[in-house]
C-alpha cells in the first residue's frame, strides 16, 4: 500500500498507519471468527431453534454429504456449463455488435438509440418473456445468460474502439497500414483494456443471471435449483452451502478475469514506461 492512498486516514489518526502483515490478517479474521463463534454457541447453548436454523457444524456436514454423493458437483457443473455457454454466445455477439457500432458511425446512429433504450429494462424482467418464448429448459436459460453478457460487452467494446487515440491513426497512416493491419496492430491493442473490462463485467453479469434463471426457470439441476430446493424443504444448511458456493464461484470468475487481463496487457506497462 503506498503512502499516497493512506495519507487521509493516517493524518486523521495522527499515527503511522503501517501495521505488520500478520497483524492485519488477524484483524481481518476477527469479525468472521466472532460471527462463527456466536453462531455455533447459540446452538450449543440452545438459544436457536435447531429444527429450523442450521448450525455451522450442520452446514459442514451437509457440505461433506453433498460432495460425497456428487449432488453438489453435479449442480455446480450444470450451472457453470450453462454460464459459460451463455457467456461465450453473449460476449461474442456483443463483441461483434460493439465493433460494428464502434467502426461505423451510420450503424451507431441506426442502432445505438434502440440499443440504449432496450438496455434500460432491468435484466430479470426479460425472464418472463424469455420463458414464454423458449420454455423453461436450457435453451431459455442460455438465451437469458447471453442477453446478460451481451449488454456490457457491446458497451465496452464500443467505448474501447471509439477511444483509440487519434495520434495512433496518424502513425498508422504514415506507415501505410492496410485495413487489416490497422485493426490488428492499432485498434485492437488500444481497445483491448476496455474490451477486457467488458469481458469481466459480462462474466459477473452472466453468473448472477445464471442464478436468476435457475430460480425462475425451475427445471433441471444447478446451484440455483439446489438453493430453491433447500428453501422449499426448510433445509437451511443446504441454502447456506449454496450461498457460499455462489460467492466462491463469483470470486474465482472475477479473479481469473483479472489475471487474464494482467497477462494480456503485460506489454502495456513496458511500452508506456519506455515512451513516456
Amino acid at each position, binding site marked *: 500500500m503506498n*503512502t*499516497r*492512498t*493512506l*495519507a*487521509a*486516514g493516517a*493524518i*486523521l*489518526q495522527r499515527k503511522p498507519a503501517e*501495521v505488520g502483515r500478520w*497483524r492485519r490478517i488477524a*484483524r*481481518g479474521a476477527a*469479525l*468472521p471468527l466472532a460471527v462463527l463463534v456466536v453462531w455455533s454457541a447459540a446452538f450449543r447453548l440452545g438459544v436457536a431453534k435447531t429444527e429450523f436454523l442450521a448450525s455451522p457444524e450442520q452446514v459442514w456436514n451437509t457440505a461433506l454429504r453433498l460432495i460425497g454423493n456428487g449432488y453438489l458437483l453435479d449442480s455446480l457443473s450444470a450451472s457453470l456449463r450453462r454460464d459459460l455457454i451463455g457467456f461465450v454466445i453473449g460476449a461474442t455477439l456483443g463483441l461483434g455488435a460493439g465493433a460494428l457500432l*464502434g*467502426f*461505423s*458511425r*451510420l450503424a*451507431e*446512429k*441506426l442502432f445505438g438509440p*434502440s440499443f440504449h*433504450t432496450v438496455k*434500460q*429494462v*432491468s*435484466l*430479470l*424482467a426479460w425472464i*418472463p*418473456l424469455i*420463458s*414464454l*418464448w423458449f420454455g423453461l429448459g436450457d435453451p431459455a436459460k442460455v438465451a437469458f445468460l447471453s442477453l446478460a453478457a451481451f449488454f456490457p460487452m457491446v458497451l465496452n467494446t464500443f467505448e474501447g*474502439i*471509439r477511444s*483509440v487515440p487519434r495520434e495512433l*491513426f*496518424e502513425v*498508422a*497512416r504514415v506507415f501505410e497500414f492496410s485495413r487489416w493491419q*490497422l485493426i490488428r496492430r492499432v485498434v485492437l491493442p488500444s481497445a483491448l483494456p476496455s474490451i477486457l473490462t467488458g469481458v469481466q463485467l459480462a462474466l459477473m453479469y452472466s453468473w*448472477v443471471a445464471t*442464478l*436468476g434463471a435457475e*430460480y*425462475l426457470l425451475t427445471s433441471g439441476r444447478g446451484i440455483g435449483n439446489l438453493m*430453491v430446493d433447500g*428453501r422449499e424443504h*426448510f433445509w*437451511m444448511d443446504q*441454502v447456506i452451502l*449454496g*450461498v457460499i458456493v*455462489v460467492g466462491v464461484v*463469483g470470486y474465482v470468475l*472475477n479473479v481469473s478475469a483479472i489475471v487474464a487481463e494482467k497477462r494480456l496487457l503485460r506489454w502495456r506497462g513496458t511500452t508506456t514506461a519506455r515512451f513516456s
Partner: protein
Amino acid sequence: MPTASPWQRWRRDESGVDMGTVLIAQAAEALDSTPPLTLGAAWRARLLATAGALRDLALAWPFPLLVFAVWWLAAHNGWVAEQILPAPGVVADTFNDLWQTGDIAANLQISLLRVVYGFAIGVGIGLVLGVAMGLSPTLKDYLYPSFNTFAQVPSLGWLPLLMMLVGIGEALKIILITKAVLVPVAISTYQGIRSVPTRFIEVARVYQLTRGQLLRRVVFPAAFPQIWTGIRFGMTKAWLALVAVELLASSEGLGFMLVYGRQLFQLDVVMAAVVVVGAVGFALDKGLALIELRLLRWRRASF
C-alpha cells in the same frame, strides 16, 4: 464536435497528401478570407447543428420501425400464435387498460416505495461504512475482508437464505434492496476518501485546519464525485434487486405484474410491465444525473 469513428479518421486521407499540412493551409486560408463571425454566420452554424441533430433523430427511427413492422405483420398474418407474440395494437390496448384501471399506478407506487426505503437505508449504511473504512486504517483492517466476502455473493445469492430468515414480507424486499445499494456506496465512498490527493491534505495542514474542517472542507468535497458515482450505481442495483425480489417473492408490485402475466400466458401484460420497468429505471437514473449536474456545478466553475 463529435469524435469521428476510426474508419472516418482512417479514410479521411486516402490520397497520400499529408493532412497536417493541408489543415494548416486551410486554416491560414480561412483566416485570410472569411469575415469575422457575424450574427448570420452564428445562425448558420446553429442551423447546421440543428440539421445534424434532426438527421440523427431521423436515423434512429428506421430500425425500431422495421421491428414494429415485422412484429405487426407476423401477428397480423398469424405467423406466430397470439400467446407467443400478441400484436402491437393488443399490447398498446392492454397498456391503456392497465393504465386506466390504475393497476400500473398502484403497482408502481408499491415498487417505488420499496426502492425508496431500501435505497435510503442502503445509502446511509454504505456511507457510514465507507467513511469509517476510508478514514481509519485500523477499522479498515477489521471490516474490509468481511465486507468484501459479504459483497462477493450477489444479492440474488442471498435471496433464498434471506427468505428463510425473514419470510417473504416487506422486510425481505427492503433488506435485499438495502444490500444491493450499500455495497457500491460503501466501496466508492471508501475509495473516494482514500484517493483524496495528498497535496490537498498538505495544503490543509499548512492552513492548520482542524480535523472537522479537514473533513468538511477538503476530504468530502474531493471525494464527493466518486461517492456520487457509487450512489448512482446503487440506484441501478436497487432497481435490479427490486425486480428480482418481486419476481420471486411478491404478490404486488411491477415484478409481480410480470409473473402474473406469465402465469396466465398474457404476454401483453408482460410486455406492458416490461415497458414500465424500463421507463422507471431510465427515469431514476436520469433524475440522479440531473441532481449530479446541480450538485457538481461548483466544480466546473472553479476550473
